[in-house]
């Protein structure tokens, strides 16, 4: 697929990277040509859409829950500094060590230092978007620390030296036959090999993952997680999951480091009553996910006795400064917007060139990095038809279409002064439309121009997806003049 590198160090480090990915239109073209990918995606997103619709329709006051979720997050963001300080105080009081990280590099350094200080050379990982965002596995590998992904889909991606393509199901682009092949090829190099009699039955594949990872869970001394929520008042972190790999990582090792984006904070424990209703139904389409774990610093005699929390900015304060865009920080990473998006369903996640694909990725990446950061990020606000399905599905009512439009404007602003095809065309149009005489001249030349464009193929980027209309035999203005505005038309 988009993988560019090779696997080293016993399969623990993957060199597949989003760095250097082409802009969305080019990447999407490659993805669209992959019919297996499109079939996998259509099946998977269709399944999850139906499940979500079923469980959401069970909740009479769903719209009120969405409003409540949005309001809680907005209120928190407006006083984010205060809530972060409250969270820090509560965590420290409960025996956790709090670190602050301005960017990805700083966060990775902190995690690596904890590993080094404890003479740890491998960590087990709970599925976490934020550790992917900061490239933690790669950073740990350069420090000689192996990071084992333990979520089934993450394991498939890691063993396949692949890239994630969905927030909830990073291996959504793989079907069961492909997964079986990856397990047979790569499990042995990373630990316990796949069973000899493995089939492509999902239950058998899940069992192979269970056997492969159990020895790692039992021996790991350190785990790394993210958090779905961080309760400021109590210092409680929350991880929502399905497989029990999260519980294994959060419970069995001696040392736990959780990397938490600063927008994950909620003020009080009882605020969770909204999000624990919104998240599972929006995400996996279940009334409740199989396991939700909460922990508050160190619990003597139960679970990790050395607990670290890394509070990460990495662009979040940039997004917070964007008056319209800051609502993207409400996001609870459910992925409902991906599953309903007609663009995502056809291109898949890799085309977005980021760990955050789909509609939320199309706004989050430019908000975190800033317009004009790089051509790939600048292409994302255009990766949408603005149909609005994402807004309808979003459990915290992020108005993604409006932010997309606003981000498009910001991309244009960032490129002002630099020549562009659109810019030249618009300048030309302005000059042509300034006087009737120039327009008349242009109209006479249009048939010629269109014919020339067709012959020379210069309009290819337009015509590859659309028809170039045939030139009219006579322009409107010429017709008006000839027929005196239609009065003499019958005489023509």
């Amino acid at each position: 697929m988009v993988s560019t590198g090779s696997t080293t160090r016993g399969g623990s480090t993957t060199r597949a990277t989003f760095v250097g990915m082409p802009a969305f239109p080019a990447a999407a073209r490659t993805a669209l040509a992959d019919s297996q990918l499109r079939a996998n995606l259509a099946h998977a997103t269709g399944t999850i859409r139906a499940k979500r619709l079923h469980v959401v329709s069970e909740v009479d006051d769903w719209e009120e829950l969405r409003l409540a979720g949005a309001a809680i997050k907005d209120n928190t963001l407006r006083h984010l500094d205060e809530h972060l300080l409250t969270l820090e105080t509560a965590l420290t009081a409960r025996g956790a060590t709090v670190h602050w990280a301005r960017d990805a590099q700083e966060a990775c350094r902190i995690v690596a230092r904890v590993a080094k200080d404890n003479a740890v050379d491998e960590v087990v990982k709970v599925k976490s978007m934020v550790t992917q965002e900061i490239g933690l596995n790669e950073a740990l590998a350069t420090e000689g620390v192996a990071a084992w992904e333990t979520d089934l889909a993450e394991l498939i991606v890691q063993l396949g030296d692949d890239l994630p393509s969905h927030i909830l199901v990073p291996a959504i682009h793989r079907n069961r036959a492909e997964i079986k092949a990856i397990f047979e090829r790569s499990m042995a190099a990373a630990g316990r090999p796949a069973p000899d009699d493995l089939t492509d039955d999902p239950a058998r594949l899940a069992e192979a993952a269970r056997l492969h990872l159990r020895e790692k869970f039992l021996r790991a001394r350190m785990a790394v997680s993210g958090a779905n929520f961080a309760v400021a008042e109590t210092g409680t972190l929350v991880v929502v999951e399905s497989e029990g790999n999260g519980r294994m990582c959060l419970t069995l090792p001696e040392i736990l480091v959780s990397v938490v984006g600063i927008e994950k904070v909620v003020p009080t424990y009882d605020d969770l009553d909204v999000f624990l209703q919104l998240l599972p139904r929006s995400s996996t389409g279940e009334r409740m996910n199989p396991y939700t774990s909460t922990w508050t610093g160190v619990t003597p005699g139960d679970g990790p006795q050395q607990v670290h929390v890394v509070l990460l900015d990495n662009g979040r304060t940039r997004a917070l400064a964007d008056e319209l865009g800051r609502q993207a920080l409400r996001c609870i990473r459910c992925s409902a917007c991906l599953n309903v998006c007609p663009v995502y369903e056809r291109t898949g996640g890799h085309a977005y060139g980021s760990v955050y694909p789909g509609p939320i990725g199309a706004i989050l990446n430019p908000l975190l990095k800033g317009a004009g950061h790089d051509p790939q990020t600048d292409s994302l606000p255009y990766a949408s038809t603005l149909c609005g399905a994402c807004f309808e599905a979003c459990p915290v009512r992020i108005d993604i279409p409006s932010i997309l439009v606003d981000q498009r404007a910001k991309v244009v602003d960032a490129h002002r002064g630099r020549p562009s095809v659109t810019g030249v065309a618009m300048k030309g149009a302005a000059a042509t439309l300034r006087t009737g005489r120039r327009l008349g001249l242009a109209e006479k030349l249009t048939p010629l121009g269109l014919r020339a464009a067709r012959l020379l193929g210069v309009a290819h980027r337009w015509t590859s997806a659309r028809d170039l209309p045939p030139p009219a035999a006579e322009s409107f203005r010429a017709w008006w003049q000839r027929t005196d505005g239609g009065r003499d038309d019958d005489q023509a």
Partner: protein
Amino acid sequence: MTTKPDARSEILARVRGALAGTDVAPVQVPRGYRSRPERLDRSGLLTRFVERVEDYRAQVTRCAEADVIRTVASILPTGARVVLPPGLLWDVPGVADDGFTATDLDGYAAVVTAATVGIAETGTIVLTHGPGEGRRALSLVPDLHVCVVRADQVVADVPDAVRLLDAESYRGRPQTWISGPSATSDIELDRVEGVHGPRTLHVVLVS
């Protein structure tokens, strides 16, 4: 000479800078969901709890208080090694947790625990890992989890459960919310029960 600000001060300063000039008046949070009309009577609620737990392909057995020990014993496979949390109210067969290592626990086939709350709407049981429930590893590593829930612990929905668990006595204690056996939908979004957590969850509802 200026020193580079530390990460903490710099992030807080960035947050304050980003919010400068923002209207910080609180947005009203609608809380109607916390007082939903009761649609089910007590017995209807318990029936719903059972149905919803079973929806996750967990097993449920209902029994009277006097029959808990016999019921649990009949669920445990013959000859299975069973580990028990300290403070379990029912004298079921098994070995009391003695601070076993994870590898030790992996040698046990089953665990029997109590619970703190059951949620009818979602078929969820919540453990707060106090007496009778045991530390978190105990109900995680063995492959069969038998969980005894008393009928009076079953509440209607998530807001009711959160209100109960927000009590001072649970502050700071870890919680595990369990809805069925471990499961994954990571392969083609088809649900498969049984991954890393207990592959079988058997709830005993006592009324």
